[in-house]
């Protein structure tokens, strides 16, 4: 992206979760469900002396994309690291379940999930994990009828159980700012040691888990610029393509075979990983 483009583009990352949903839906079509003024907040955070947010960090937006019924689930990365608790999890799972029900009743509803999340909210551990499992099941149910498109724009990225949810999506869109991984850098450093994985070495972290690397390794479908128009266009394109013949998650054996070939006795380079995955998945 050159300087002129940079000045002209409308940044998607700089939008808050609600504005992101509005930007992806057709103008004037957005209707929020279980909105902030319904005040369905986390009962568990308050008990632990933590200030709650009125939407529990999840925006459920119903509307249309190119005239077709669509539900957008947008996570608030700023609130508790975009962590998923009981309420936020139920909002996402419930909305996906209703979209699948719509499809069974003749309304072909699609879904987009905007992942900005560190995964489960530790203060609501078991309930959050149960909710994430429900989200996984709901994605697999809905993607039989219509595409479920995941988008991780950044800057939080997508980790933990929600990275599995991202892996289950029909299509996955990221930007270079996004990161995608099961464990976050700090957790890996804590478990494997700083010699193995230095969480403060940002170029190193992004070179392995950043959007560009994940795209080059076949773990996501598109790596786009931080631009509202481009993200909207890419999303619309995947919706038009419809349900893919084979979902990425159905190719788990191929991915496992790639991973088995990695020489763990020495530090791999991002380039080696790209080549290995490209060869193994082609």
């Amino acid at each position, binding site marked *: 992206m050159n300087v002129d483009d940079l000045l002209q583009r409308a940044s998607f990352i700089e939008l*808050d979760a609600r504005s992101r949903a509005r930007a992806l839906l057709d103008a004037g079509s957005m209707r929020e469900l279980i909105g*902030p*003024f319904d005040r369905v907040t986390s009962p568990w955070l308050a008990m632990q*002396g933590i*200030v*709650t*947010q*009125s939407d529990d960090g999840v925006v459920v937006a119903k509307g249309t994309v190119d005239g077709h019924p669509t539900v957008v689930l947008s996570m608030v990365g700023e609130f508790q690291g975009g962590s998923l608790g009981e309420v936020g999890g139920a909002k996402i799972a419930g909305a996906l379940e209703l979209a699948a029900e719509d499809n069974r009743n003749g309304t072909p509803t699609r879904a987009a999930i905007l992942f900005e999340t560190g995964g489960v909210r530790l203060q609501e551990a078991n309930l959050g994990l149960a909710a994430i499992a429900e989200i996984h099941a709901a994605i697999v149910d809905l993607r039989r009828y219509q595409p479920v498109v995941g988008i991780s724009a950044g800057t939080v990225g997508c980790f933990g159980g929600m990275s599995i949810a991202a892996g289950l999506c029909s299509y996955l869109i990221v930007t270079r700012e996004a990161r995608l991984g099961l464990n976050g850098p700090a957790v890996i450093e804590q478990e494997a040691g700083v010699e193995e994985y230095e969480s403060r070495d940002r170029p190193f972290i992004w070179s392995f888990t950043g959007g560009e690397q994940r795209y080059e390794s076949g773990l996501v479908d598109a790596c786009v610029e931080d631009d509202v128009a481009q993200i909207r266009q890419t999303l619309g394109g995947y919706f038009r393509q419809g349900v893919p013949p084979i979902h990425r998650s159905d190719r788990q054996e191929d991915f496992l075979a790639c991973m088995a070939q990695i020489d763990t006795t020495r530090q791999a380079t991002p380039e080696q990983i790209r080549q290995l995955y490209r060869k193994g998945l082609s």
Partner: protein
Amino acid sequence: MEKIEYDYPAGAPAAQRVLTGVVGSGDLEVLLEPHDAGRTTVAVNTSVDGMKQVWSALLARVFASAELPACKIEINDFGATPGVVRIRIEQALEALREQAVEGQRS
């Protein structure tokens, strides 16, 4: 976590609901809803204890000095500085005024 409540005189009821901000580090969320004419209430939930004097002074400066629409305000604060608090409240009041102007035009 501390909860503080305030009551101020106000004008006519606010025309609609407004939400600004986010409960992120150093930021806050302001939920503004219409209230009965003549009365504005502010309920503050803050992660920082022992700052009641600062809240009182700041909110008095905003709500006691001018005739503002009657609102029921809820603030969920995650350690915002007084400057940020003021900006978020002003942002909510500004959105209220802008929506009122748009309503008159249409």
